[in-house]
């Protein structure tokens, strides 16, 4: 391009045109503040009503993270879907169906009432149920993406249909029977291990790894950049040469894969597969993403935010249990907190994004 490229970049950090630089806080700061605020409120209420600390309790912290690990894994996937401007309602049903499939491949020969897929399919290496779960999740997710890309029906409808169908599959698979007494080598993945007297559940480690990988993918790879582009302006993305259909299939497949992973973790932790597993998990996952700053309109969202959003949900749930608030009240207040967290965050975003 010859002469056009002659101007040189200014030193890093120096303003382009002498306009004062704006200091930008990462968008997660406010949501982190909400998390701390909620934790502190529970801490104070704890000393006041229960007479003990809310946070300084290894068992409780372990439960908080264990509770959120499964929905967290799903939330990381659904965050990516929401960034493209879509939504995935089928993840909870996938947990039910895939937990059944994984459980059926993880049965122990010592179980006299094993549900046979084929004679002798017991005591398999745990790699089989895990891989089958991941593959099945990716496949169902891919079908979601393929439906949306080719028929152009709204993602809400496509995944709503998938949600109902897959829940049906979960029940059909064993005609409603649960599969129990799974092999120890499989259930190992759902157990905790001890780190200095602190019980760390393995699903939590999986959640952390998944979150880090997806954060890196969204922030540093072409896959991530295209995901944001499609959610921000699909037409502009198309003109920029992005194949939207292909990309959506990838994103929904990733979300499905993570739902499959969540299903495997659920089955391993519960040491069984039940067709009713994962009901409404998709809503918790969407709530976590939205609390974490992901915009349902697409184009905006980060895994770090979703991570914090997930923890908020966990803290709220276990905080109420700790304060011995009745289950009914818990749900009522949880709904209010979800909405309030998003209202606060949106208000702050609007202040930040005043246009000129």
């Amino acid at each position, binding site marked *: 391009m010859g002469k056009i490229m002659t101007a040189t970049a*200014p030193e890093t950090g120096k303003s382009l045109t002498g306009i004062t630089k704006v200091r*930008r806080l990462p968008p997660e700061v406010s949501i982190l503040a909400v998390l701390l605020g909620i934790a502190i409120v529970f801490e104070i209420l704890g000393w006041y009503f229960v007479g003990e600390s809310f946070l300084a309790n290894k068992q409780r912290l372990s439960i908080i993270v264990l509770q959120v690990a499964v929905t967290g894994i799903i939330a990381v996937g659904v965050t990516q879907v929401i960034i493209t401007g879509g939504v995935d309602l089928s993840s909870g049903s996938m947990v039910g169906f895939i937990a059944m499939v994984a459980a059926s491949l993880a049965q122990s020969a010592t179980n006299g009432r094993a549900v046979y897929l084929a004679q002798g399919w017991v005591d398999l290496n745990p790699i089989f149920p895990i891989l089958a779960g991941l593959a099945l999740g990716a496949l169902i997710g891919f079908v979601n993406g393929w439906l949306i890309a080719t028929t152009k029906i709204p993602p809400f409808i496509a995944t709503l249909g998938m949600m109902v169908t897959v829940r049906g599959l979960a029940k059909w698979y064993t005609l409603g029977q649960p599969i129990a007494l799974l092999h120890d080598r499989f259930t190992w993945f759902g157990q905790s291990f001890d780190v200095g007297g602190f019980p760390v559940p393995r699903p939590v480690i999986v959640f952390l790894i998944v979150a880090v990988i997806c954060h890196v993918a969204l922030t540093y790879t072409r896959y991530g950049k295209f995901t944001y582009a499609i959610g921000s302006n699909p037409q502009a993305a198309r003109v920029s040469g992005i194949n939207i259909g292909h990309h959506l299939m990838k994103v929904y497949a990733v979300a499905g894969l993570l739902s499959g992973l969540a299903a495997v973790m659920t089955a391993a932790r519960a040491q069984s597969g039940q067709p009713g597993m994962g009901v409404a998990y998709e809503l918790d996952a969407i709530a976590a993403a939205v609390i974490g700053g992901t915009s349902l309109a697409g184009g905006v969202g980060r895994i770090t935010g979703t991570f914090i959003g997930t923890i908020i949900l966990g803290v709220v749930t276990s905080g109420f249990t700790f304060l011995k608030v009745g289950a009914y009240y818990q749900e009522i207040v949880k709904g209010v907190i979800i909405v309030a967290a998003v209202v606060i965050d949106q208000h702050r975003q609007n202040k930040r994004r005043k246009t000129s």
Partner: protein
Amino acid sequence: MVSPSTMKIVRESGAVSGSEYLLEVDDVRKEFPGVVALDNVKFKLRAGTVHALMGENGAGKSTLMKIVAGIYTPDSGSFKLRGQDIRLKNPLDALENGIAMIHQELNLMGPMTVAENIWIRREPTNRFGFINHGEMQRRTVELFSRLNIDVDPTVEVRSLSVANRQMVEIAKAVSFNSDVLIMDEPTSALTEREVDHLFRIIRTLKADGKGIIYITHKMNELFEIADEVSVFRDGKYIATKPSSELTRDDIIRMMVGRDISQMFPKLEVPIGDVVLSVKNLSLNGVFKDVSFDVRAGEILGIAGLVGSGRSNIAETIFGVTPASAGTISIHGKPVVMASPAIAMAHGMAFLTEDRKETGCFLLLDIQENTQMAVLQNKYVKYGFVQRGQLAKDSQVMANTLRVRTPDMQEPIINLSGGNQQKVLISRWLLTKPRILILDEPTRGIDVGAKAEIHRLVSELARDGVAVIMISSEMPEVLGMSDRIMVIHEGRVTGFLDRSEADQVKIMELASH
């Protein structure tokens, strides 16, 4: 200071104000994070005049008008309407006090009818409180006949052309009996004939004693319609003069603070081999049998009225809407342009006409907007974006095009229209195209930036890029093109060489 509601009552009582100005703002200041948008500016509008606001992108015109229209509240400064101090709190306040703004991006509701759009929130009702559609239509017809607008009040707005939507917006503003009408680049999407119509309407309004604030980048319009001109630069007020006392060069000098000697520095460059060849290209119902060649170093201008199919041809060549018949060859080899990705792989770049719809990723920052197209083929290793090199090259591009921003992490939505356009141009230049299609590359862009973009296009042509440039602005087409292809109703009506082309010949071919 009177409250907006008191003011409204006073106005409706028919009281006459003592001030010679309809509107006076003084010492107005407005800051946005990191930018002083307005630095103690003043502005006075007389009744029965058209007052043009001139300035480069980001000079503060749009911000000032948004303050006048009650969309922004100023940080400080005085604001007088008909001689009375007033503080408008929101656009509704402004509207009820006789200030109406016609936005650059039209604000109509597509699925609703023309009449519904105009009378929304003020629908005539019958005694049961239901909307009286007959009365609403009667009022619309009356309003339209007064303004000489020929639009059916019962059709949905989304079925109207851009020009007609603009007319509806103007009629809506007039329907509020507004004294102050703000028009922000009203002609940017209009053909010459439609512009004439608009000017007739403006003259009618002027004769009725309305004050019209007119923002434009087009000099010839200014001398045709404006009585007074106020110039702004970098958020500062420069001067106000009657337009009869000014020349084009005076205004440019005030706007950019320096002389721009040559507006269209077209370079004479050797024309090379045919790069892109289009044969009998057709798209069902839109255009038919379009054939042309573009050579390396050549700038092919495409002229024609809005809606003649100019943009559709560009979209088809770039694979956005694949052709129904005909061939596209690049360097003599036929290529099936099934998607933009294929076009890009063959060295094409396409700057679309509509910044907001098909250009900007408004939620993303400048860096991300700049890199989105080039990521398709370059700056990616093992799926990872090579951020360092990409940031450096994007920064160079932004500096070259003089994008006015604190840094590359600024959300693009915070930039003015012209600066957004520069970012989009950098997006495509980063891909180092061999064939560059530009659809209205300088629409809504100030004089200084326009000349820069023209220079850039000229230099690209010198480096052997084949350029196709669609433009509604005659001086641009005539100044930049080596050859001009004219389109009328989806068909090529003629080619004009640079030496023989003039405005009259183009208009003849374009309207046939």
